[in-house]
């Protein structure tokens, strides 16, 4: 990777909207999101369940297209809008240039196919490689992601591997064709904390070696603190705050981000008895009131918060944006 391209934006998302038609009406899962992803960086999409982070990521690779899904906006990937690209075109991008690591590897791997065979299939879908050569590449990949005795493990079925090993297989699958973008959807949620750390380390090392940009979807701020370069905090389908890891984690501006950070238990601070929680629950229904979606749960909410949707606004630091009308001040 040459220095000249280090800051190159490889994915530019503008006003992305994803709506699902449900019985009660149209559910705005993603409601106008702007994002940029630079070559080789890790962008963490943080938010609680139902905040739209997975819907956003799946829309980028066309994995949630369907009669009940409405997708609008642009996602510029090398001059091509991923959101409107034809399925046949997307097929050539998916797996080859943008890959996804799914959360639950046991469910995401085909139970009847050997672990290595699933990676071989991924390689041979996009490259004309002889079968034996693809198996050799797969065994090398298995070694790279830290799977013990890769030569034997490639022949194993998913149920014969441990949870941590399966997740590594999933990562090997994601990296098989050396993609420019890897979308990691809660890649460590199903794992023990120690295995989590190992898997994240593997992901980081490989990212550095290959110059892969990672979109890391998670609700775990501990994971974010460990690996993210930049963070976008999502709430009710919108990005409410975005900035570098330091800006968002250490100088949060939006009340929601502050609430999230305050609810993380500290290992070193005093034990206070109860964990801090944000009162109320997130908007997940069909009806969205105008104005800031977080206002009903916000301690700082005032009259200005019910005005039409607040936009991301520039804070005092460059690149640090938030969507609080009060500017995070009471």
């Amino acid at each position, binding site marked *: 990777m040459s220095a000249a391209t280090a800051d190159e934006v490889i994915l530019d998302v503008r006003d992305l909207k994803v709506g699902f038609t449900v019985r009660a009406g149209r559910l705005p899962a993603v409601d106008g999101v702007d994002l940029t992803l630079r070559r080789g960086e890790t962008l963490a999409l943080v938010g609680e369940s139902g905040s739209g982070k997975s819907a956003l990521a799946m829309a980028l*690779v066309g994995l949630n297209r369907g009669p009940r899904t409405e997708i609008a906006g642009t996602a510029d990937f090398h001059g091509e809008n991923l959101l409107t690209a034809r399925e046949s075109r*997307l097929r050539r991008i*998916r*797996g080859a240039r943008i890959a996804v690591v799914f959360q639950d590897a046991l*469910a995401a791997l*085909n139970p*009847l*196919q050997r672990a290595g065979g699933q990676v071989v*299939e991924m390689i041979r*879908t996009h490259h004309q490689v002889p079968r034996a050569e693809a198996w050799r590449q797969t065994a090398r990949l298995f070694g790279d992601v830290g799977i013990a005795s890769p030569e034997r493990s490639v022949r194993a079925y998913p149920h014969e591997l441990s949870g941590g090993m399966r997740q590594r297989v999933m990562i090997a699958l994601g990296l098989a064709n050396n993609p420019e973008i890897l979308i990691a959807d809660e890649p460590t949620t199903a794992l023990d904390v120690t295995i989590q750390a190992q898997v994240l380390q593997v992901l980081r090392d490989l990212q550095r070696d290959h110059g892969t940009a990672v979109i890391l979807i998670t609700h775990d701020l501990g994971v974010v603190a460990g690996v993210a370069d930049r963070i976008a905090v999502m709430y009710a389908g919108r990005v409410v705050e975005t900035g570098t890891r330091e800006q968002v984690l250490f100088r949060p501006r939006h009340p929601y981000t502050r609430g999230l950070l305050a609810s993380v238990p500290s290992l070193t601070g005093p034990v206070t008895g109860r964990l801090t929680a944000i009162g109320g629950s997130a908007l997940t229904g069909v009806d969205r009131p105008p104005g800031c979606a977080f206002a009903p749960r916000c301690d700082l909410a005032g009259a200005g918060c019910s005005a039409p949707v607040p936009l991301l606004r520039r804070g005092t630091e460059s690149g640090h944006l938030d969507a609080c009308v009060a500017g995070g001040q009471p």
Partner: protein
Amino acid sequence: MRYAVRRLLAVIPVLLVLVTIVFLVMRWLPGSPASSLAAAGAGSSSTSQITASEAQIQAALGLNRPVLAQYGRFLWRLAHLDLGTSFFGDNSVLSLLGQALPATIELTIAAMLLAALIGSVPGVLAAWRKDSPLDVVIRSCATVSFSLPWFALGVLGIVIFGVQLKLLPTIGRLPSSLNYAPTTGFVLIDAIVQDRPALLGPWLQHLVLPATTLALSMAGYITRTVRAAVLEVRGEEFVRTARMKGLTERAIIARHVLRNASLPIVTVLGLQFGSLLGGALITEVVFSYPGVGDLLVNAVLERDYPVVQGAALAVAALYTLVNVGVDLLYLVLDPRLRKGVA
């Protein structure tokens, strides 16, 4: 391998219970082979003469002995693989089955293959185009298919293709003019072994109507099963992974969905084989097709105990063997099941 042997041994008690039930039911049925035989050979004899000869025949066949003694002798012979001799004519039950069973197996397999083909393809299509007009049409046809009784379908087939259009033969398995002398009893194999390809044309012509009749009545059920199985697998996360890999829809169906959907489909096909076999027995009667069904129905009417027992045993053995085969097929299809078995 050990698992296979164990499964096969477990079949024996099942078959033993079955032959016992058949043995008892036959003897409890009113009427006896002796009275059939006596009446058949009576001509103009008086009632008392018939009664006298009936008693003689009872004694000759051993039917005057207590049921338990008869049962004991039956089991003793069965243990020596002796199914006895027909009360009517002097054919051993084994030789009768040797002729009839291949015909039934042929018919059942032909119907099964046909049903699997015309059942599963629309099932996959319906699942892949769920809620589309195509899906609705396929589902309706499936319902009609398994609501139709196969004997009615058989009669309809005979009337249209045999009687009206005169396209197909309506009775028998092969015209007698061919002088077919079975080696294995399976026409397809015999045609190769005896180097008589001329057998195949007439054989297929005779097979088409009964096999299609059976297959049509079964296909709808298969369609529904396949559709449900494919729909369920299609929602699985590994299908999304397959799509993420950039595979075409066709590759996703072939390599990921169908392989995983095959487990419930094979289960249902195995179970359906039983009702297909039952259907074959009835269809054989409709088409005067010389299989086990034909043999069994006549034997029941004549109270020909050894033949009924032998035929029931053969059909049951066939059915249980197929189900053992299905169990073994699971192991081939699903690596997760091999663990506890190996």
